[in-house]
């Protein structure tokens, strides 16, 4: 600052010049800071519509409007959510009784302590015709529940039961926006701001698009495609190995529960949107972009007359799917314990794996690398009956998908024998991996034993139990059964001189386990 010299100057300096310079400097400083301020514009989170709604809009704006309005009415927006009782979601409900009411202040007795401040949760007063209000705040000491001023004070008599609904949904939405939204998107469409950075490799799975209600790693039987809460919990807690879905192990259990409910909320919203779009599909433009024939009558039939019925049907189907997924009857549980994981079993598993009777190797490859012959075929899109442009397998989201490379030791659905058993028995929903439930259970355990041994022993066993070192299988070098002594004469240039072992002269680590298959000569 050049103004240091002014310290010693008295009032004799030129005031006019001072003021101009200083004011200009101040204005410049303020302007310099402006870009920082502009950056914090209020980010309005909104649910985005399915891509097809824009096309629907061009032929039938009535249909598009009815669709978006009904979604708005039954699900709301991220800042004004709607808890729809038709869906099997735990919105977070607390029951109670009204003790006395003065205008918008109610003295209530609640059956349990609310976990949050209950700002803006829904209040349902179970009078003759239920009245819906919104809570503004709740004071646990005085037990006064204050309602917002938005609507007229309700008419309640003491003793009226009431329900406070939505605290879990609120918590879920806040946690979801903080932890999940940036990949999975505000609408749960897998298209959040950071999702684009996951596109660097052909086979990197993108963040899950919940809107089909399909989840891959479930513990339910084939056909129950909705996920159980436990499955979602496992995915969030453990992450998905080998993908960009990290582990959120350190979230508290109640935080996990809230996020799970919100994910289900988004999935159900997407499913209902999807089913309504299927109902309105005849109104979409034809392949050459023209409106369909009989647009007027179709519009009246589909978008007006039968629309509410379609919505109710969609809701009941979605509710049934999610509820039946929770039914313990639909869990995949083996009936026999895992067969002993010995060499014989693994060999049997290997032979099953490569046999044409089941055709595992046709997708997973003879070496289990996920490069089987079926990947060279061009598949057909089941929704449009058109061929996909490039060869390879696709998942339900029409993205390229590769069969699991079983040599990697990465198991997205879990590495327990039970998890691998579930993959083999029920398949992986939304992918071409089928359920092999008709293969006898003993055979399935053999396959499980074999699959779990591949990363350690390599995929190549021939009928004699010998290991075959195929082309570029780099793991094979360490497993040659005749090369125990290789450890002692390791001649890599950067290796340190032979370590003097602490106790035993033997170079192999002591284990409490009998020697594995690779020691067999």
């Amino acid at each position, binding site marked *: 600052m050049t*103004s240091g010299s002014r310290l010693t100057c008295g009032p004799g300096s030129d005031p006019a010049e*001072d003021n101009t*310079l200083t004011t200009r*400097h*101040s204005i410049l*400083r303020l302007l310099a*800071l402006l870009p920082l*301020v502009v950056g*914090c514009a*209020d980010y*309005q989170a909104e649910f985005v519509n399915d891509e097809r709604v824009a096309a629907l809009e061009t032929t039938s704006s009535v249909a598009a409007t009815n669709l978006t309005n009904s979604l708005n009415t039954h699900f*709301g927006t*991220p*800042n*004004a*959510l*709607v*808890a*729809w*009782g038709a869906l099997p979601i735990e*919105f977070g409900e607390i029951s109670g009784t009204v003790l006395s009411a003065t205008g918008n202040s109610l003295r209530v007795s609640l059956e349990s302590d609310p976990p949050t401040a209950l700002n*803006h949760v*829904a209040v*349902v007063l179970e009078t003759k015709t239920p009245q*819906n209000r*919104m809570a503004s705040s709740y004071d646990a000491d005085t037990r006064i529940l204050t309602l917002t001023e938005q609507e007229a004070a309700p008419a309640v008599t003491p003793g009226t039961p009431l329900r406070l*609904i939505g605290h879990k*949904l*609120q918590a879920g939405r*806040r946690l979801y*926006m*903080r932890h999940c*939204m940036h990949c999975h998107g505000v609408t749960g469409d897998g298209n959040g701001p950071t999702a684009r950075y996951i596109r660097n490799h052909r086979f990197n799975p993108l963040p899950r698009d919940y809107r089909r209600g399909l989840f891959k790693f479930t513990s339910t039987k084939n*056909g*129950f495609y909705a996920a159980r809460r436990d499955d979602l919990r496992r995915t969030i807690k453990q992450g998905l190995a080998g993908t960009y879905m990290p582990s959120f192990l350190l979230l508290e259990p109640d935080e996990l529960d809230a996020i799970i409910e919100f994910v289900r909320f988004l999935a159900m919203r997407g499913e209902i949107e999807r089913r309504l779009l299927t109902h309105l*599909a005849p*109104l979409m433009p*034809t*392949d050459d972009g023209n409106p*369909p024939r009989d647009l007027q009558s*179709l519009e009246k039939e589909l978008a007006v007359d039968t629309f509410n019925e379609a919505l109710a049907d969609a809701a009941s*189907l979605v509710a049934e799917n999610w509820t039946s997924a929770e039914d313990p009857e639909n869990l995949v549980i083996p009936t026999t314990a895992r067969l002993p994981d010995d060499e014989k079993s693994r060999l049997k598993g290997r032979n099953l794996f490569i046999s*044409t*009777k*089941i*055709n595992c190797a046709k997708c997973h490859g003879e070496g289990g690398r996920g490069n089987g012959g*079926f990947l060279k*075929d061009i*598949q*057909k899109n*089941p929704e449009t*009956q058109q061929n996909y442009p490039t060869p390879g397998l696709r998942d339900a989201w029409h993205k390229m998908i590769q069969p699991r490379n079983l040599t990697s030791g990465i198991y997205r659905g879990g590495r327990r024998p039970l998890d691998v058993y579930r993959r083999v028995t029920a398949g992986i*929903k939304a992918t*071409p991996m*089928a*359920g*092999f*439930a*008709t*293969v006898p259970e003993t055979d399935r355990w053999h396959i499980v034993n074999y699959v779990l041994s591949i990363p350690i022993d390599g995929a190549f066993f021939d009928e004699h139990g010998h290991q075959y070192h195929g082309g570029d299988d780099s793991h094979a070098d360490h497993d040659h059964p005749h090369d125990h002594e290789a450890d002692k004469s390791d001649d890599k240039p950067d290796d340190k001189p032979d370590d003097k072992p602490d106790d035993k002269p033997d170079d192999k680590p002591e284990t409490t386990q009998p020697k594995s298959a690779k020691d067999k000569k």
Partner: protein
Amino acid sequence: MTSVVRAIAATAIATASLGLLTGCGGGASATPTVTYKAGDKSVDTGGGPVTQIDGTGTLSGTIRLVGTAPTPEVFVAKGTAKRDTNVCGAEVAIIDQSLQVGEGNGIANVFIYIDKAPPGAPIPAAPTAPAVFDQKGCVFLPHAMVVRSSQTVLIKSQDNAGHNTHTYPGRSRSFNGAIKALERDGVPLIYNKHERTPFPVKCDMHSWMQAFHLALDHPWGTITRADGSFELKGLPATELTLRVWHEKAGGRGGFLERKLKVTIPKDGSATVDKEFQLSDFGL
């Protein structure tokens, strides 16, 4: 005040207002409002008391194509399959079945059905015998099938190679099960809901394999034979709205006709003959 003080004061005010502005609302930490919407206990489908429909009749007819259908594409010429060569297309070449035109230009595998059973029509019980869905030479047999929802479909295989059957129903539970070689007992599959549109059934391992199923909660649906003819017996004797669907029909939904109105005379028969253009099939 000296310019220095003024400068500092200006910066301080700017920083303070920046702080205020950044603190302002919205975003991830805002608490959303929640309103409650009760689930509707029942949907009012309208209408008053329902009069019973007694008497049944028959509907028959033919669906024809106007023009010459293109020669179907050969997916796998005989003996040239790249995988499972001794099974797929070993005896007979595998040909595209998406538009099969028979004698008299009749179109095969056209679905003719009623969407919802007319109110008041007594619905016969579902058959107890299972429907058989087979595959031979890596081709599904039959290519199109109508079953009752809740009727068991047994998936069998005459092929000495593994297949899988992957269904894509609109409302029922889906299925993706492996069918092992020479599966003669059959893998059971049930479509538990009434379907409103036929849906594809595919094999992921052999990408050309495709068939279409339709599951109805009543027996009034059928497919045309190779010569395009069909017959539906036991239809309620009233005015019916028929749907005519084919997998290759252009536009959304695959419907050749969505509202074909026919009156079935009691104890009599009605006839419907329809002709469709090549353009209806996107050709």
